[in-house]
C-alpha cells in the first residue's frame, strides 16, 4: 500500500521525526484507516482494533526517530500494527460477534461502488465473515499472506513462528475457508 503523496509524506515524515507533533498528526490522519483496517482484520473486534490502532501510532511516535526509511512508512506502520494487535489480541483473546457485525456493516457502507458483479460482491461479504470466524492464529496468516500479500518469511517473522508453521497454518486456514464457503453455496 503506497503512500498517496510521496513528496508531502516525506516532508511530513522529516518534520515528525524532528518532533513536530502537528506533522505527525497529519500522518496519523492519512494512515489511520489503513492501520485500523489491518488491526480490525487481525483482531475481528472493533473496539480492540481501535485500541490497537491508537497504540500503534503511539508506538510509532516513540520509535519514529529510529525509523530510517528503509521501508515505506505504511509498511513500517503495518509491522507495528501486527505486533500491537498480536499483543492486545493475546491479552483479550475473545471475540465479540456484535461489534464485528457492526463493523462489517460500516465496511460495506464505506466501500466504493462495486464495479464487480453482484455475485463477486456477495462472495466478498461471505468471505469477510468466514475470515472473521477463523481462529486467531489462522486468521492472522490469511490476513497477512492472502489479503496483504506478505511473504511466508515476513508472516513467520511477524508472528514469531517458523516458516513451516506459517505455511501449515495458511493451508489449514484456506481449507477451512473453502469448506465454509462451498458448504454454504452447495
Amino acid at each position: 500500500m503506497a503512500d498517496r503523496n510521496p513528496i508531502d509524506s516525506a516532508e511530513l515524515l522529516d518534520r515528525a521525526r524532528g518532533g513536530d507533533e502537528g506533522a505527525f498528526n497529519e500522518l496519523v490522519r492519512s494512515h489511520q484507516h489503513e492501520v485500523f483496517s489491518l488491526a480490525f482484520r487481525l483482531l475481528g473486534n472493533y473496539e480492540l482494533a481501535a485500541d490497537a490502532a491508537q497504540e500503534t501510532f503511539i508506538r510509532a511516535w516513540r520509535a519514529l526517530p529510529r525509523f530510517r526509511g528503509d521501508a515505506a512508512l505504511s509498511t513500517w506502520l503495518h509491522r507495528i500494527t501486527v505486533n500491537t494487535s498480536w499483543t492486545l489480541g493475546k491479552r483479550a483473546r475473545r471475540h465479540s460477534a456484535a461489534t464485528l457485525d457492526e463493523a462489517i456493516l460500516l465496511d460495506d457502507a464505506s466501500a466504493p461502488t462495486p464495479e464487480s458483479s453482484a455475485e463477486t460482491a456477495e462472495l466478498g461479504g461471505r468471505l469477510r465473515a468466514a475470515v472473521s470466524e477463523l481462529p486467531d492464529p489462522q486468521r492472522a496468516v490469511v490476513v497477512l499472506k492472502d489479503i496483504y500479500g506478505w511473504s511466508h518469511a515476513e508472516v513467520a517473522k511477524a508472528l514469531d513462528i517458523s516458516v513451516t508453521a506459517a505455511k501449515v497454518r495458511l493451508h489449514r486456514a484456506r481449507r477451512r475457508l473453502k469448506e465454509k464457503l462451498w458448504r454454504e453455496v452447495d
Partner: protein
Amino acid sequence: MAGSGLSIGCVVRSHLLAADPGRHDAHIDECLRCQAEAARYRTMLRSLAALQDTVVPAPAGLASAVGAHIGGLDHDPRKAAGREVAVAAAGVVAVASALALWRRTISA
C-alpha cells in the same frame, strides 16, 4: 462427497498424484469436478486479495486521541539514550557501593 466438494475418489487420487505434478495436471485436465474445485480456489484467493482495497473506516476521534496522548511522550532519541546511560551509571555506582560495604564488613 468430501468436505472440499471433491468426490472421495478425487481426493485420494489428488493425494497420490501430488508427488507427480505432471500426472496431477493431467488428472485435473480430464476431471471436471477438480477443474471446478480449482476455479473456486482461485476465485477465493482473488477475493481475499481484493479485500485489501476495502477500507474499514477508523472510529471518529482516533487521530485526536492519538494527538492527545503523544503530547507528554518522549520522542527525542538523545533524551532516551541519555536516560539509559544515567540508569546504567546509577547501577554501576550501586554495585560498587555494595562491594565496598561488603569488603568493609569482611575486613572488620
